Structure formats: structure tokens, C-alpha cells
């Protein structure tokens, strides 16, 4: 078999573009982490930072990880020419956050049922709002919707009144 030199293929897979940029960015911040790329069945690209410095990435209230996620999405759109749903994760942050948000949603739902008053949550990003909506989807006594404009868009939990 002749070993013919192949030129390196130009990477246009948006997930790889995103992962490469995230790796570069985290190294520039001075973090020792490796970014792993995984494509979930729903089409979302998960970029998970693994390593000794991964717990630095979330930042206060997730402000750092969410800013990084937003910027990596913008850069990927520019470089790969298409919008992808991507999640930046580190140190299991998203799973822990999902648990926190689910518990919070149920507590507020209980309060709404008790008082009959609707409740407006603090602003959340689209991904986190979806966690709250999903947590209360099967609750027969409340409905949820979102109001306001990004980045201050909030979930509202409201009593479901009999028709």
C-alpha cells in the first residue's frame, strides 16, 4: 500500500469547531482542562471540560460558564456557518444545576398552590427555563410560561384554574 500524503481535511463539523475554540479559550484563561465533545440524541452538542481546574469554570451563579457558552455559540456560528444547540459543561455543573432548578420549581409550585398567586422566578437562560417548564409539566395544578425579553426573560408559575 502506498503511503500517500493526504492533506489534513478542513474541519467544518460545527461541534469540533466549538470544542476547539472552547479548548483554546479555557487554556487562555489559564485552566488545565480537556474539552470532550459529545452529540446527544436530541442533536445538542455537549462540550464538557474535564480536569483539575474544571470547578473554576461555572463562576458565581453560573455567570462564567453561561457567558462562555454564549460566546462559543457566537464564534461557532461565524466559523462553521450554522447555528447549533450547544451546552458547555464542567465538573457535572449542568446536572447539579438541573437538580437545584427542579427542586426550586417544585417549591415555588407548592407556594403557588397554597396562595393562589402566580410567581415570577429570577431570569434564567433558555436552557434553564426549559428545565423549570419540564419539571412542572405533569403538575395538574399549575401552568408555566415565560415572559420578558432576553437576557431578563423569566419563568412564571401560575395556578391552573378550572376551565
Amino acid at each position: 500500500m502506498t503511503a500517500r500524503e493526504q492533506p489534513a481535511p478542513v474541519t467544518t463539523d460545527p461541534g469540533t469547531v466549538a470544542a476547539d475554540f472552547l479548548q483554546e479559550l479555557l487554556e487562555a484563561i489559564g485552566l488545565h482542562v480537556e474539552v470532550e465533545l459529545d452529540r446527544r440524541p436530541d442533536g445538542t452538542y455537549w462540550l464538557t471540560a474535564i480536569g483539575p481546574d474544571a470547578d473554576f469554570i461555572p463562576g458565581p451563579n453560573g455567570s462564567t460558564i453561561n457567558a462562555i457558552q454564549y460566546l462559543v455559540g457566537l464564534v461557532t456560528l461565524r466559523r462553521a456557518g450554522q447555528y447549533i444547540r450547544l451546552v458547555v459543561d464542567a465538573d457535572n455543573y449542568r446536572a447539579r444545576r438541573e437538580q437545584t432548578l427542579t427542586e426550586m420549581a417544585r417549591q415555588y409550585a407548592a407556594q403557588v398552590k397554597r396562595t393562589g398567586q402566580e410567581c415570577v422566578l429570577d431570569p434564567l437562560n433558555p436552557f434553564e427555563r426549559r428545565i423549570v417548564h419540564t419539571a412542572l409539566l405533569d403538575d395538574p395544578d399549575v401552568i408555566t410560561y415565560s415572559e420578558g425579553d432576553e437576557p431578563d426573560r423569566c419563568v412564571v408559575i401560575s395556578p391552573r384554574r378550572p376551565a
Partner: protein
Amino acid sequence: MNEVITLLVRALVDHPDQVEVKQVETDRRDLIRLEVRVAASDTGKVIGKHGRIAAALRAVGRAAAARQGKRGFVDIVS
């Protein structure tokens, strides 16, 4: 922090060669203050609707400075 903001801003604009990130002297040793300048036509690309991109750049700048034990501030000059 300078390297981080330069990397991000260059990746966001149409004219990366016109990106200028300069550290400004402050009277506090624990504070890093950066001034970012881009081509006039790129201003929107680093500010974004309702300042959302600028806010994200500031958040990442703060994190990069915190990594060095400092406070970081990013000023977008237009």
C-alpha cells in the same frame, strides 16, 4: 486576561486586524482594566443586542482576572 479578551474579540469581528486591546493604568494594583477598540463597523459585534455580548465579554474577563487573583474590568470604547 488581555490574551483571553483579544482571542474572543478577534473571533467575533469581521476585521480582527483592527482589534486593539490595551491595558489601562489604574491606581489599584489588584485591578486590571482593559480598553477594547474595534473597527467602527464591528462595534455591534462586540456589544450585541441590549449589550448582551459586551456583558458576556465582561463576565469572562472577570473570570480570567480572578484566575490571577485580580479584579477585571473590560471597557468597550466606541
